[in-house]
Every structure is written in structure tokens, then in C-alpha cells.
């Protein structure tokens, strides 16, 4: 490990900048007490797991508060500020409310599947956290196939959503589940290709190595690869069911989507899972695009994992920002957007990145010369592609001039008298399609001087 010149606190166990020292110290203790070989593994795994679960627990609560406050501020209102200072106890109140609510299960629902769905939906979000590098050598599992592991886990989410929709035996829920699966599977392809571009450029799939790559070349990958950042951000916001793609629980259309039948803590778990997945995805973006714990030597002074959490919440703010402002896509527009724009852009991007890496390796040029050149080219390339898409492939509204016409007096064009759609001229007295509301249906009448029965079809 390279020696770090600017170390204020020497490398012993209470150096909080890198908690691996702590676990290293504990391993030493076990070896001194010559415990069994596997005990070291178990202890370090437990330490990492406890760290992650604590982070997840804290995040699930804090994010509810952050999201409601930030979206509130965007809508020029205050957001929760009644419970506790600045409304900090509001998420706690929500959690308690959800816990004491009765968990209903529809009678004909598929019990086993119905209760497994929220758990299966939460697992990917938590498991992804294990692979992320929180500090220089502080990552629970330094998998050699880190990014592939992330993709595999996030692809499990689609199935969990289906089990939720199918299990609750409700027409709307199944409707929502089918929509969401179509969307998730469609948006998996652009996100895989976008990350492939990054793997190509940094030459490794291990996330910790990627951060070291960015530290070595002293540049966050978002500058070098702007297009994959855009593609991954949009496709992950679709995968997380967040506006502008929150088709699943589009209240104005089908009410509630796949978690319409859930109540009590099961719904709470679905809600928390959404937040945890959002944090997991923003953690991935922070690691891969913004250079996780590294920030131009800042990680000497400030603990690496604090920088990392700062970056996570920077990306998370982006998600909340889009949620607060953008209206929702329609399902077919969303899928067309994925197939017609995102996937071809991702393919084009991979080709360009491959060419760049090839040039870099063949010429063996120094990074100082090559990287700025690549940054400029990639930015230009992204801009050209976007403009080209908007001009040619995007929804064409050219035939409707946007500005309105203004008249200072009435002007009605003389139009031919329109033949209304001729209903059956000699329709029988009670109208052709006599609806089911015939008088014989009975119902409200003037019994006992009280008007009985409200308006009914």
C-alpha cells in the first residue's frame, strides 16, 4: 500500500479514516489468541455487515425526511417541520404509524408469494452495498466481477415486483406489475451497455480498482464519459420507478400499481425498499462516475467514507430533483424512448470508447495529453448525438406551429354543416343501447318520507 505522507493520525486502529484498520486490529487480536482460522473471516464479514445494515437503517429513515423536505422546498412550501426540530422526527412517526397498522391480505391472495415479494424487493438494494468500496481498502467484498454482480442483483428486482403484483390477486396490481416488468427489462439493456463503456475504459470490473483508476489519472469518469452517465441516470431512474418514469404507481391512471393491496409494515417495506434501491443506485453512480471515496487528496484529511456518502447524497438529490419537477411519460413513449434512443446511443458509445482505449494503448501516449483530448471529444460526441436525436428521431412537432394566433375581433371560418354521426334515426322509444339501468332495477324511492338511495348507475 502506498505510504500516505499527510497522515495526521498514524496508522493505528483508532484512525477512523479507514475502518479497515479497525477490523485489521481485531484480526490481530484473534490471531494472538490463536482462534480458529475461519473466525477471522466470520468477524470481518460480521463487522462489514453490521456497518452496512446500520447505514441502510439510517438511510431509510433519513431519506424519507430529505425527500419530503427537498420536494417541499421545490414546491415553495416548507415540508414537514412539526415533529421535532425541522421535522426530523417525521419519518419516525411514519414508521411507527406503518408498524401499528394492521397488515391486510386479500382473501384469494397467494399467501406465500404475497409476503415474500417485499422481502425479495429489498434484498437487491442491500446486497449491492456489499460490493461498493467505502474507503481505500474498506469494502466488504472486493469481487473481481464487481459490476457484473451489481447488474445481476438489480435484475432480480423485476421478479420481486411480479411476485408482488401476481400475489395480491388484484386486477390493478397485475396491470401495474406487467407494466413495470416490461419497463425494467427494457431499461436493463441501456444500463448494462452504459456500464460496459466504463468497464472498457477503466479496464477492470472491480469497483475498488475503478476508484483507484480515477485516483491514478486524477479525473472522475463522469467527465471522460458524459454520455454513459446520462444513459445510466435515465435508465436507473426508470428502473427505480421514479418520475419521470413512475409508471407503476401512476395514481392518476391505474390507482396504486403493484403495491395497492399492501398495507401496514409490508407496504412500509416496499416504500423503504424503494428508498434503499435509490441510495444503492446513487452509490453505484457515485463510485463509478464520481470516484467514490477519492477527492483530490481530500481523503487524507476527511475519512473516505464521508466523502463517499456526500457524493451519494449529491446524486440522490438529482433523483429527487427530477421527481419534484418532471411530469410522467406514457408507457409506450417510455419504451420507445429506451429502444429508439438509449440503446443505439449506448452501442455508439461503446464503439467510441473501444476506439479511444485502442488508440491510448497503441500510441502509449501519456495520460496528460490523451485525457483532455478524450474529454473534449466525448462531450462533443454526446452533444452531437443528442441534437441529432432531437432533430430527426425525436417526437416531431414541427407541423404544429407553437405560437397561437391572436385576433382582436371574432372571426369564424365558414364551415360545412357537419352531419352528426347519425344514430339509428328511428330508434325505439327507450333508445338503442338501453343500458342495464332499467327501471325494474328498483332502488331508492320515497319510503317513509325520506329520500332513499343516492345517485347510482
Amino acid at each position, binding site marked *: 500500500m502506498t505510504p500516505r505522507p499527510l497522515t495526521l493520525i498514524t496508522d493505528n486502529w483508532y484512525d477512523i479514516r479507514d475502518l479497515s484498520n479497525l477490523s485489521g486490529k481485531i484480526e490481530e487480536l484473534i490471531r494472538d489468541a490463536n482462534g480458529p482460522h475461519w473466525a477471522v473471516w466470520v468477524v470481518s464479514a460480521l463487522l462489514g455487515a453490521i456497518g452496512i445494515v446500520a447505514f441502510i437503517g439510517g438511510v431509510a429513515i433519513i431519506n424519507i425526511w430529505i425527500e419530503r423536505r427537498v420536494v417541499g422546498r421545490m414546491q415553495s412550501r416548507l415540508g414537514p417541520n412539526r415533529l421535532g426540530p425541522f421535522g426530523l422526527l417525521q419519518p419516525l412517526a411514519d414508521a411507527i404509524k406503518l408498524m401499528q397498522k394492521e397488515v391486510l391480505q386479500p382473501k384469494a391472495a397467494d399467501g406465500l408469494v404475497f409476503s415474500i415479494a417485499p422481502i425479495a424487493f429489498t434484498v437487491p438494494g442491500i446486497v449491492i452495498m456489499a460490493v461498493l468500496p467505502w474507503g481505500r481498502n474498506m469494502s466488504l467484498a472486493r469481487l473481481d466481477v464487481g459490476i457484473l454482480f451489481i447488474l445481476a442483483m438489480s435484475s432480480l428486482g423485476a421478479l420481486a415486483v411480479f411476485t408482488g403484483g401476481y400475489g395480491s390477486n388484484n386486477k390493478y396490481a397485475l396491470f401495474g406489475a406487467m407494466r413495470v416488468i416490461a419497463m425494467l427489462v427494457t431499461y436493463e439493456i441501456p444500463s448494462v451497455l452504459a456500464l460496459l463503456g466504463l468497464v472498457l475504459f477503466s479496464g477492470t470490473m472491480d469497483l475498488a480498482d475503478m476508484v483507484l483508476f480515477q485516483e491514478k489519472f486524477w479525473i472522475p469518469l463522469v467527465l471522460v464519459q458524459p454520455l454513459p452517465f446520462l444513459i445510466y441516470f435515465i435508465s436507473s431512474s426508470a428502473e427505480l420507478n421514479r418520475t419521470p418514469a413512475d409508471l407503476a404507481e401512476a395514481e392518476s391512471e391505474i390507482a396504486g400499481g403493484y403495491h395497492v393491496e399492501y398495507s401496514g409494515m409490508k407496504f412500509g417495506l416496499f416504500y423503504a425498499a424503494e428508498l434503499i434501491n435509490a441510495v444503492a443506485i446513487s452509490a453505484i453512480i457515485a463510485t463509478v462516475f464520481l470516484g467514490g471515496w477519492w477527492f483530490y487528496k481530500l481523503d487524507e484529511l476527511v475519512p473516505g467514507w464521508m466523502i463517499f456518502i456526500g457524493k451519494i447524497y449529491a446524486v440522490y438529490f438529482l433523483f429527487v430533483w427530477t421527481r419534484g419537477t418532471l411530469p410522467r411519460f406514457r408507457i409506450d413513449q417510455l419504451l420507445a424512448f429506451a429502444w429508439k434512443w438509449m440503446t443505439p446511443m449506448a452501442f455508439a458509445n461503446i464503439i467510441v470508447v473501444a476506439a479511444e482505449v485502442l488508440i491510448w494503448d497503441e500510441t502509449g501516449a501519456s495520460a496528460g495529453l490523451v485525457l483532455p483530448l478524450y474529454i473534449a471529444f466525448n462531450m462533443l460526441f454526446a452533444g452531437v448525438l443528442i441534437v441529432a436525436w432531437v432533430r430527426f428521431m425525436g417526437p416531431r412537432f414541427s407541423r404544429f406551429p407553437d405560437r397561437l394566433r391572436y385576433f382582436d375581433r371574432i372571426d*369564424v371560418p*365558414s364551415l360545412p354543416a357537419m352531419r352528426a354521426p347519425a344514430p339509428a334515426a328511428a330508434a325505439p322509444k*327507450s333508445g338503442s343501447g338501453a343500458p342495464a339501468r332499467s327501471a325494474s332495477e328498483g332502488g331508492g324511492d*320515497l319510503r317513509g318520507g325520506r329520500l332513499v338511495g343516492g345517485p347510482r348507475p
Partner: protein
Amino acid sequence: MPHAATVMLAGATVAERIRAAVPDAVREVAPQWVVLEPSAAFEAMAAVRDDELLDGKYLVELCSVDQITRIDVVYHIASLAQNHLFELKVPADHEHPEVPSVTPLWVGATLQEREVYDLMGVRFPGHPELTRLFLWDSFPGHPLRKDFLALPGGQKAGLSQFPKQIVGETGGEFRPRRPGTGE
């Protein structure tokens, strides 16, 4: 050229245009409106709509007035191009009012005719789906009629004083009981 302000056409001019198209359609001409024969009402309406002078392509409004002896269905028709407005009335019998539906001529009339049927009880043969618009089907009677729930002495009934009604005896159509007339 459209008039500066909407002109209310006089009954005479409208009547003269209608007689030109459908001779025996006009029953009576008043300064502000024209009363049509119910039998020839539909042809007169069609003529009014397609006449180049009257150009009644825009049905402003359709409602009904209960004149005790008869029920008038009032049509306000306008021409947006020439910015003028005129009024036609079609009288109908008070007990079994029936006026031909104008939905084949104006689509806008569908909901308004259903409202008139619902509140006044005027039947409109030719209407695609003549059912009640606001009230539920088994609501007895049509509230806007003057004789609806009339109490002794002809004083109009407030909605809260409902006389007792024996279910089943009068079948679906609830006939308000008039004490003293025995039925």
C-alpha cells in the same frame, strides 16, 4: 360580415325564412321567438340549420318551461359567423310531452336533451341513449314540473315535506296524490 354586437333576430324574419323552406311549420310568431308545430319541428330545425341567411349551425342552448297547460321546449340557436341569435319554441302536451330529438342535427344537444327528459319528463324519440342524467332511474316523477309534489292549495312544496307513498301500489311511475280529487 358579423355584426359588432350579437343581434337578436325578430320572430318575423325567422318565421318568414322557415315558411320559405317548410310551409306549415310555423304555428305562431312572437316579436322575440317563433313557435313551431311539433309535427314539422324536425324539418324546420334542419332548414334553419342549413339556411345560408339564418346559418343556425351553433345550438346555444336547449331547455324546457312548464306552462301548466303545455310544456315548451325552447331552443336558442345562433350563427357564429354572422353573430346573430334567435329563439324557437316547440310546444308539447303537458301529460305526455314528446318532441323529436335534434341530436342528428347538433351533437351538443345529447346531454341537454337528457337533462330535459330527466327533470321535465319530455321524451325525445331519435335520441341515441335517452336515460336520466342526474337522478337515478327509479326516481319517481320529474322534479322541475310544476305539478311535482304540489300540495293542497297549489302552494309549491318545499323539498322537505314529502307525502307518504305506498310502495307498489302506483308501480314505477309515482303519481302525486291530490287530496280532494280522489285519485
